[in-house]
């Protein structure tokens, strides 16, 4: 009955209540959205680097290499020579080395040349059909099969590059021979085939379309590099800086200024590069898992010094990424708690002002037999009801926002978030904080209601 009375009181002044509720909802929604995003984002990122100790790829930003080859959310840094990479892949330290060759996509889904080990790495199985064996046979991820409604035996043409719109390789059709089981990882959104398929597709393609098309087609980042190459002077200058840095701290230099060094190299032997293509096969990256973990520490340096490739540690790069946007998330979280504080103040002001109007009401309730504690409870319950409703709305709106964000990220990065999960610990803390704000806002008005002098109030009526 007291709770019912509290509820009726709340809606007797709907504007006050709605204001407090909107503020509460907004803050809870932002915080719970951040909690869900951060948790799932980190989980997805961490789960995808399981079993990858080091990524071998073309020189450039190590973060870009990780993002492109492990998460498939960025363009590759360039290609590396398969023969050169093979030396390292067969090293006794290595347990598994999975080569990856990118080139094409099918309706926005990346086609990746690799080995069946790649499927094993993600603990996926072939749920229908068989694994790819011959050229142009593909295994598709479970999400693709679902979204595009592809079945075993279907054929399709790849589109060059990573953009959905582009040149279509019409010479060879890919044939779907298998569908991978769902894993919740990036493999669900990939089309997998043999490395040779990618080579064959592009080798022939190159012949048919002449050199100009080929050079830009083969090696997507080269287009960009072309620009830098035009203003060659500046470019040379930066190479100097690079050399200087090299003496000081090698690792640092790789992160700081890598694309320039790499561009310089490739462009110098630009012609050779085109000639080479027929004999020297290229791949985009190699995912390496070590038997001997010593390799994780020693290889990045060794590879940077002795080859034109780089080796990047996914765990390190991802930690760097997390700490970068961790600052942004933190700032948003502070903002949200700020809004919650304001909503607490708004509840306090509403209750306090209402108390002045309602003191006769309280006196009357006391006359009718209500105890002091019941008056205290009435004010507290009003505030708590507001907070609980605000928390429920906030949690729902936060998840609604996540659904919208998820549909965007799914489209752009093939990364989806599940709004149905509940992160008990963090959301539990959020609930307690909300309740605490409610109690805090109600303490002074509640105590005033508790100490109300009935006789004085009624005598002054």
């Amino acid at each position, binding site marked *: 009955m007291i709770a019912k009375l509290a509820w009726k009181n709340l809606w007797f002044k709907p504007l006050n209540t709605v204001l407090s509720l909107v503020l509460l909802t907004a803050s809870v929604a932002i915080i719970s959205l951040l909690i869900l995003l951060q948790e799932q984002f980190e989980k997805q990122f961490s789960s995808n680097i399981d079993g990858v100790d080091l990524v071998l790829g073309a020189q450039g930003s190590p973060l870009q290499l990780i993002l492109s080859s492990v998460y498939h959310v960025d363009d590759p840094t360039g290609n590396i020579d398969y023969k050169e990479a093979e030396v390292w892949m067969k090293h006794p330290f290595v347990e598994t080395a999975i080569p990856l060759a990118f080139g094409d996509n099918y309706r926005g889904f990346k086609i990746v040349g690799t080995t069946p080990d790649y499927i094993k790495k993600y603990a996926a199985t072939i749920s229908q059909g068989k694994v790819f064996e011959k050229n142009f046979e593909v295994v598709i991820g479970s999400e693709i099969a679902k979204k595009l409604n592809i079945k075993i035996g279907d054929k399709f043409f790849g589109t060059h590059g990573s953009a959905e719109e582009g040149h279509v390789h019409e010479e060879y059709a890919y044939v779907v021979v298998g569908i991978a089981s769902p894993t919740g990882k990036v493999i669900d959104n990939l089309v997998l085939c043999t490395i040779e398929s990618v080579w064959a597709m592009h080798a022939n393609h190159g012949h048919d379309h002449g050199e100009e098309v080929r050079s830009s087609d083969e090696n997507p980042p080269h287009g960009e590099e072309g620009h830098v190459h035009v203003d060659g002077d500046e470019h040379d200058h930066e190479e100097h800086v690079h050399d200087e840095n090299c003496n000081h701290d090698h690792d640092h230099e790789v992160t700081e200024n890598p694309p320039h060094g790499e561009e310089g190299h490739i462009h110098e032997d630009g012609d050779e590069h085109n000639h080479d293509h027929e004999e020297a096969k290229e791949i985009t990256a190699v995912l390496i898992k070590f038997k001997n973990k010593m390799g994780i520490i020693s290889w990045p340096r060794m590879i940077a010094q002795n080859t034109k490739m780089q080796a990047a540690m996914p765990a390190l790069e991802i930690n760097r990424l997390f700490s970068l946007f961790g600052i942004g998330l933190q700032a948003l979280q502070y903002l949200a708690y700020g809004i919650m504080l304001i909503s607490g103040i708004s509840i306090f002001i509403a209750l306090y002002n209402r108390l002045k109007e309602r003191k006769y009401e309280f006196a009357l309730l006391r006359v009718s037999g209500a105890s002091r504690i019941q008056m205290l409870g009435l004010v507290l319950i009003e505030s708590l009801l507001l907070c609980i409703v605000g928390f429920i709305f906030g949690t729902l709106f936060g998840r609604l926002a996540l659904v919208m964000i998820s549909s965007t990220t799914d489209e752009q990065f093939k990364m989806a978030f599940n709004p149905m999960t509940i992160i008990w610990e963090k959301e539990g803390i959020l609930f307690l904080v909300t309740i605490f704000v409610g109690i805090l806002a109600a303490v002074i008005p509640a105590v005033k209601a508790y100490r109300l002098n009935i006789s004085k109030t*009624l005598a002054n009526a």
Partner: protein
Amino acid sequence: MIQTESLSFSYNSNTVFSFPNIKNNVSEALLITGNSGKGKTTLLHLLGGLLRPKSGSISIQDTTISSLSEKELDHFRGKNIGLVLQQSHFVASLNVLENVVLASWLATGKKATDKAKSLLKQLDLENQMYKLPSNLSVGQQQRVSIARALINEPKLLLADEPTSSLDDENAFKVADLLAKLSKEYKASLIIVTHDQRLKNKFPNQLNLN
């Protein structure tokens, strides 16, 4: 039945009220009159257990309310004392019926909805039951507070200037209802007023002047 003995009260050392002894039986009505500042409302609040006397005792039926604890007093007040004030106050967010029912719930823990309805019907408020109190006329509001004061069948019905803000017609209507219903519910009725209109109606009077 209510009985007081050598009752006194002071707000501060300068103003001390000493009240004559009062005795009023069940179903009887007592009119307490007096000029402003003579402690009429103070006396009513003492009788209703809203204030504690400086000295003396108040007994309602067999209970000496001046010796009850705060919590017992709250409970006793809800159950045994009905109060009608000059200006009626209500829980603004509840409708007329809910306001009356709330009084029964606060005193007994049970909702006497049927009784509240028949009481309101008796007070000619049948069509006002589901309105908010603020939408009623002053006369109607005063009748609702009578219903609320009587819902728990109190032993003592106290009225503080119940008619002074009403026109003649409504004042007599309210006075009649108070007299009639206190008899019917076997309550001892005490009215504090300076309203001359009531003096002819209640022969049993006490003047504080």
